Structures are given as structure tokens and as C-alpha cells.
């Protein structure tokens, strides 16, 4: 797609994707110890979507995502220590242990939160984009959601309103072909996901194979158009694939809802490996070494952090 992507961009993308891959592999490794007392919906295999999209955004652009939100949180610049501590339920977590894996937030990084109720962050992101326009700020808001969310009414209501008001938002559908164990082909009537967005007059593009660079360039273009006031919302259908089970670590091929061949075909085009190869060995190795240190330190930070005090149970329900 972008054969001559510059090496600074490649390094940035590889750093981001490798870090996310390894963080989640560590989560998988630690999970059986039960130190992480929170359901985890891993992005293993899907990292490139968050990486390609977020690398094209400004620091103060806003991202909303889903319970499968580790990748988006990290790609947008969410603090790693505070994420791992949150998974451990520690007071140093990004929400002092009250949120867990499914509700990550880092306001300083423009990561506004995630939800365990499918499709609910879509209207929130549209509302945020509405506020940015209302305040005449040139912030772009991005919302990630799964292919399952497209079936919810809130998706359609949100796209309609965003298109009606020409709001500065990019809708990114992470189409991993399944909602839990249900394949998209068994759930979808009509012409596909992009066609749904197009029916609201929203420009829509499907990116194949989790192509990080293609996602990056597509979002860069969309964001530039939005910032220049030349367009309202954009829709991107990012084809991707989840390597592990819907929730929790490990393989789920024994459930037989998908095939070894399908999984292998996606693993053969793994974006972590592809970007490493494009970047070249010495640079990639340097990035890996750095990331390993940072990740080890983050788990160490979480291990050593205290749990919240009992007094915190009833705190933060309301704002004064």
C-alpha cells in the first residue's frame, strides 16, 4: 500500500505494535496466577488496527473504545504502568482499581474510556465530537467498535446524527469476523458494513488484512479532511482477526466455531512480523529490547502497588 513509508513512521508503528503484542502475551502468561482478577478481552492478532489508526492522530485527539481496549489504550498513549496496575486492581491503576480491563481510561492521553456494553461508546464519541464542534476546536474523535456493534440500534442512530450534523468523527469498525462465537455471515443481512455507513452519506472504506500502513494513511487523510472542514464523519471497516479466545487467554479452536486453516491464514500475515521485516533487524531489535524493559517494569509496578483502602468503596459516586 505505502511501499516507501518513511523509517521514522515504521519505527513508531513497530514500537507501538510490538509493545501491545508483548503486553498481552505477558497478561496471558500471568493470568493463570489469578493476580489479574478481571476478565480480559485480548487484542492479540488485532493490534494493527489500533496502532495504524492512533498513529495518525494528534495527542489531543480523542479516542473511545470497547472492553477489548488494551490495544487502543496503549496505541493512543495510555500509561502502561497504570494499565497493568488497573488489571491487578491496585490503587495506582488508571481508575484506582474500580474499572478493570474493560474500562480503561487515560484522559491525559485523550483516551476517554471504554464500555462493556456493546455499541454504547459510539454515541458518546459522537457527543464528544459534537462538543468539539460546538466549542470550535479542531479535535478529531475516533471510536473503535466491533462488527457486532453494527447490529445495535445505537450504531445506526449515532451514524445518522453524526452525518446529519457533519461531525468531526471517524468510526472504526474492527471486523474480526466474529461476535464471541457467532460468525458475521450468520448475523448480517444486506450488502455489508461499509454499505450501512454509506447509506447515511458517510464515506466508507474497507482496509484488508489488518494493514497497519494502509490504516495509517487512510486515517491521516480522513483526519486532515475533517480538520480542514472539508468533510464530516468517515467510516473505516478494518479487517482483522483475533488469535485467542473471545475472553481470557489461550486458544479456542476446540470449540470448533472457527478453523485451524482460517487462523493459520491470518497468522501468516501477522502485522507484528511484517512491520519488523520492513524495519530491518537492528532497529527492530533495539525497539524490542526497550519494550521488554518497560513491560517488565510495568508488571513489577503493579505487583508492588497497594490495593485501594476500604474507604474508597463509597467514593467518587458523585461530583460536588
Amino acid at each position, binding site marked *: 500500500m505505502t511501499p516507501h513509508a518513511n523509517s521514522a513512521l515504521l519505527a513508531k508503528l513497530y514500537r507501538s505494535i510490538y509493545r501491545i503484542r508483548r503486553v498481552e502475551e505477558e497478561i496471558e502468561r500471568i493470568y493463570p496466577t489469578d493476580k489479574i482478577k478481571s476478565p480480559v478481552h485480548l487484542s492479540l492478532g488485532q493490534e494493527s488496527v489500533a496502532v495504524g489508526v492512533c498513529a495518525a492522530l494528534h495527542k489531543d485527539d480523542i479516542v*473511545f473504545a470497547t472492553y477489548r481496549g488494551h490495544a487502543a489504550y496503549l496505541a493512543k498513549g495510555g500509561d502502561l504502568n497504570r494499565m497493568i496496575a488497573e488489571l491487578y486492581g491496585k490503587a495506582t491503576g488508571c*481508575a*484506582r482499581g*474500580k*474499572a478493570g480491563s474493560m*474500562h480503561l*481510561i487515560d*484522559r491525559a492521553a485523550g483516551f*476517554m*474510556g471504554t*464500555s462493556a*456494553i456493546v455499541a*454504547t461508546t*459510539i*454515541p*458518546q*464519541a*459522537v*457527543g*464528544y*465530537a*459534537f*462538543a*468539539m464542534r*460546538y*466549542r470550535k476546536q479542531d479535535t478529531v474523535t475516533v471510536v473503535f467498535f466491533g462488527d457486532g456493534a453494527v447490529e445495535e*440500534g*445505537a450504531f445506526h*442512530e*449515532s451514524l*445518522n*446524527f453524526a452525518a*446529519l450534523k457533519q461531525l468531526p468523527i471517524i468510526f472504526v469498525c474492527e471486523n474480526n469476523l466474529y461476535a464471541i462465537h457467532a460468525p458475521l455471515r450468520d448475523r448480517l443481512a444486506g450488502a455489508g458494513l461499509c454499505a450501512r455507513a454509506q447509506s447515511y452519506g458517510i464515506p466508507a472504506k474497507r482496509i484488508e488484512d489488518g494493514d497497519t500502513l494502509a490504516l495509517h494513511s487512510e486515517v491521516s487523510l480522513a483526519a486532515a479532511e475533517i480538520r480542514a472542514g472539508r468533510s464530516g464523519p468517515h467510516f473505516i471497516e478494518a479487517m482483522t482477526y483475533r488469535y485467542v479466545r473471545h475472553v481470557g487467554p489461550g486458544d479456542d479452536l476446540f470449540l470448533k466455531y472457527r478453523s485451524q486453516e482460517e487462523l493459520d491464514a491470518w497468522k501468516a500475515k501477522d502485522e507484528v512480523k511484517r512491520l519488523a521485516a520492513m524495519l530491518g533487524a537492528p532497529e527492530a531489535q533495539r525497539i524490542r529490547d526497550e519494550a521488554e524493559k518497560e513491560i517488565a517494569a510495568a508488571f513489577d509496578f503493579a505487583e508492588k502497588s497497594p490495593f485501594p483502602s476500604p474507604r474508597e468503596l463509597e*467514593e*467518587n*459516586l*458523585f*461530583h*460536588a
Partner: protein
Amino acid sequence: MRNAAGEITYAQALYEATVQEMERDAGVFVYGLGVDDPIGMYGTTLDLHKKFGADRNFDTPLSEDAMTGIGIGAALAGLRPIHVHQRMDFLMLCMNQLVNIAAKASYMYAGQVQVPMVVRGIIGRSWGQGAQHSQSLHAFFMHVPGLKVVAPVTPHDAKGCMIAAIRDNNPVVFMEHRMLYNNRGFVPPEAYEVPFGKARVLAEGDDLTLVAISHMVVEAIRARAHLAEVGIGVEVIDPVSLAPLDMDTIARSVEKTGRLLVVDNDWTNCGASAEIIAETVERFQGKRAVRVARLGYAPVPCPTTKPLENLYYQNGRTIALKAYDMVKGGVGHWEPHGEDAKEIAEFKGPF
């Protein structure tokens, strides 16, 4: 708007509060089905778009679910949305966003975000509104930690609660009973807040505490007049806000009277009346004997035909009879006479 006594209607009080807050804070905006139409939500949002611009008072697609989430998103970004629903019943389509998102955001994110949003719902009773256009459903919202619920009755409290709700940094469900809209009362012209969590003792009495919610306050005042004729002194309390709920004021009254009758503008089971009575019993059991009872809608959906609809709702007479029974004992020993509810009897459509 104001008469010589400084009085305006409940609807005008809501309008005045909204205008004053929109003037004070450029982040306040109003949206919902019909808010910028020529009726302007019974006058409460009339022509606000002409005054403040189309961004700040706009109609929406028929998308209550997403439009609630959109308000939440705008509130997360620092704006102060007021989402208006012509009937409380439509709030059922907003439940996902209100219960799962708005009520949770502050707590779940350990106070790092806030949702300063007002959700106005009008209780549609008049005549013939039937099963799906007349519900209150406030118990649903009271049940959920993280939501505030208010139901002001007087024009004074309508204005003060609206201003407090707009300034509140949390989601507030604001209940307005249609039959209160034309009531007049003194309303200070300047902006002021009526604090949540403080009940009002509207009239004092020694024999029975009568807690009434929303429009039932008007009926409770009528019941009090009936009961005065037979020498029964009733203390009428309007909680004003249901969440938070001022149980201290209610308990202080019950301490004196030893009797509590709660009349809700809703069904009784699992409702606000159940909650108020449970909390009262918890406070007094083993210390003081108290008599408790509650009244509410008949335990069925609201029928439209007038003779059945009249039976469905409580009124001054049914409340008085129940209170009489609690104080003197003996149903049927007394029949209240006097005026019936004018706003109900005199209501003319079309909607």
C-alpha cells in the same frame, strides 16, 4: 410573564431557569424531540434557538438511545446538555445509556470524568393518555446509585431545582408533572438554587405525616383540608428530591405524629413509597410504634376511559379516607365532601 404578586406558572418558571442558565453558561444547551417547534415543549423551551442559536436548542432524530449517549459524550467533554422528553415513558429507550453509562462514569473512572446532564421527563397525565403516555417510573431511576432524581411541585421549586440540576455535575432526572404546568406561584426573578436532598414541610399537623410525590402533593393538600373538618391535623411533606432523599425531615415528623401515609404518583410495589416506608420502619422499630400505609396507582396499566382512569389515580378524597382510617379507624364512617381537583376536571385537549 409575572402578575402583580410576582407569580408565574410552573412552565414559565422552567423557561426562566433555562434562559438564565443559558445566559450564564455558554455550555448549556437544550435538545430533544420538538424543543424548537412552535409549541416549544409547552412553552418551556419556546424559541430558545432564536435567542441562543440553533446549536443550543435543537430538535433531534427519533433516536432516544443514541441521543442520550450523545448528551453524555457532550457532558464528558464539558458541556451541560438538557435532554427533554415530552413523556417520561420515552425514557425507557434511554435506560441503557442512563443506567449503564451516565450513572457509572464517575465511579467507574474514580472521579476522573463527570456527566453534568439534565434529563427532563414530563409525566403525561391529563385525560385518556393511557398506558404508555402517563407513567412516572421514577423508582427505576431512584434504584440506581449515580443518578439524582427530582420532582419539584411548586413553580418556585421548579425554577430552583432546574437551576440546581443544570449546575449539578452529575446526571439528574428531572420529573415534571403535566398537571402542574399551569399552576401559578411566587417565583423570585433572579437565579437561585433549590438544594437537592431537602424535603419541604408544606403544612404542619400533629396526627399524621402525609408524604406526597409530584402532583400527589396537590391532592395531599386537598386531603388535608378534608381532614381538618373532622379535626385531624395532617403534616404534609414534599420530598422535592427523591434521590437523594431527605429521610431526616420525614422521620422528624413521624416522631411527632406516629403515623405515616405515603402517596406516590406511581405504583406502590418496589416504588418510592415502599422505600420511604422501609426506611421509616428501620429507624423506628423497637423504639416507637408507628403506623404506616401507602397509596399509589392501581396495580394495572393506566386505562383510558374516564370512569376507570378516575379510579386508577389517587385523589384528595381517597387519600383523606385512608388517613381517616389510620387515625380514627373505620372505613365508611365518614365521607369527605368539598372540591375535587380542578386541573383534572377542567383539562381540555388536544394533547
